[in-house]
């Protein structure tokens, strides 16, 4: 039984080990600086280059836009659920959000591919040169991310002791003022936790970005540019890569980067939770 529990840690370290052992071999062929700072990702060229900066920019841009859309929306829904909605509508809405979280990412990717991209190209007021871009990916990613924000933020609001709400109302403050001046500040750490966990989820998403972020290895200059985030680079190229080739190692190294990022996020969230409990 102890072993079963130990297994989770073994797995975590195992992942690190396997990824790193294959990943670091890339640094035999290319320098650290080139890998992280170059935007030239041309793994299939004769004279292959493996700079992941453009890929990083892809991840950042998609994540950034998704957060910009999903966090405010999630915030509003969370407040509505926590303070304004009646029991029946509350349960119904919550249920739909849970359902939302369960939609397979490949389905969202397919929808974005077939419908959203066409809509963006044909019916959107601006001239766009491809429907597979940061915007498309972010829209679909918001569907995945919002349930996280809504649920966790609602929990954070409900965790504030009810006597704080009563104290404020008893002084003649209205509900809106009470929410923004008393409840939200006290729910701050829970909300931060929600943001961290939601962001982690978005950064790690693969299929949606693989299918609809565009696949172009470039640093986007607008939200309608195509990009290739880190996760989609791995998923897209792994199929064609030769075992043991430099490209193979490069992809594993990207895996290491992703693992480091997500572990960092998780640990930060854990640390914040612990210091709050003090």
């Amino acid at each position, binding site marked *: 039984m102890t072993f079963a529990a130990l297994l989770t840690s073994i797995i975590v370290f195992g992942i690190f080990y396997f990824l790193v052992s294959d990943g670091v071999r890339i640094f035999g062929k290319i320098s650290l600086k080139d890998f992280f700072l170059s935007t030239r990702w041309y793994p299939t060229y004769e004279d292959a280059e493996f700079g992941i900066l453009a890929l990083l920019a892809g991840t950042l841009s998609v994540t950034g836009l998704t957060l910009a859309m999903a966090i405010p929306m999630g915030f509003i829904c969370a407040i509505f659920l926590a303070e304004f909605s009646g029991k029946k509508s509350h349960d119904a809405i919550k249920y739909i959000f849970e359902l939302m979280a369960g939609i397979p990412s490949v389905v969202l990717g397919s929808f974005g591919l077939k419908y959203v991209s066409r809509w963006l190209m044909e019916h959107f007021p601006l001239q766009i040169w491809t429907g597979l871009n940061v915007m498309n990916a972010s829209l679909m990613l918001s569907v995945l991310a919002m349930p996280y924000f809504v649920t966790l933020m609602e929990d954070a609001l409900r965790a504030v002791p009810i006597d704080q709400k009563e104290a404020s*109302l008893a002084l003649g403050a209205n509900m809106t003022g009470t929410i923004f001046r008393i409840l939200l500040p006290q729910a701050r750490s829970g909300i931060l936790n929600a943001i961290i966990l939601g962001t982690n989820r978005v950064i790690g998403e693969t299929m949606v970005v693989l299918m609809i972020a565009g696949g172009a290895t470039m640093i986007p200059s607008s939200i309608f540019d195509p990009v290739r985030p880190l996760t989609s680079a791995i998923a897209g190229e792994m199929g064609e890569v030769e075992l043991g080739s430099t490209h193979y190692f490069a992809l594993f190294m990207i895996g290491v980067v992703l693992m480091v990022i997500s572990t960092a996020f998780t640990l930060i969230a854990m640390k914040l939770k612990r210091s709050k409990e003090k």
Partner: protein
Amino acid sequence: MEDTIFAIDKLNVFYGEKHALKDVTCKISRRKVTAVVGPSGCGKSTFLRTLNRMNDLIASYRHTGSIKLLGKETLTLDPVTLRKQVGMVFQKPNPFPKSIQDNVTYGPRVHGVKNRQRLKEITERSLKQAALWDEVKDELKKNALNLSGGQQQRLCIARALSVEPEVLLLDEPTSALDPIATQKIEKLIEELSERYTIIIVTHNLQQALRISDYLMFFYVGELVEFDATEKITTNPSDPRTSDYLRGIFS
């Protein structure tokens, strides 16, 4: 002849199916201390919370009847305005996790006071009225949660007073405090009653007898007896009241 501040007529309160208050009719006098007593579950907290419409927060709450504050019907009034006139202090001290000063100025600010000088004056006045000024006047920026239980409760009183209500509702304000802090607050209540109407719910009969001018005795949702404290204690009209006074009920 004393001023009536609350005129309550045939008040009935329901939580869903439960009939919590039955046909309560009475007149509460201004600038006096009225204690509300009775065994657990008799409806005294419900009564108190109906006076400032805090019960509105409970989904299954319904009422019939009327409560008039200085002639105006409160049950149909906007609760926000009502609560400016009728303040409340809770059983467990619940200061905001802010500075002492910010706790006291929260109420006035919410009601539109912006002038910093005025806010300072309000802070000083309220803390003095709550007998807390001398202890904290040099530490107004200190976090309220660092105060002792008794100080926190006096801060909550100061906070309630900062909006200059007519009435102060106290819901078992000393039951979470030690005897010395309790004593300080009881003295405070006597002082405050010169300017404010105090209605205090307490399960501590001795406390009620010590500080109140009037006594309301509730039993299973009914207002059994309501009269001057002296009169009730020497000559209660209802047998249930005398039983309670003799300590038969909890």
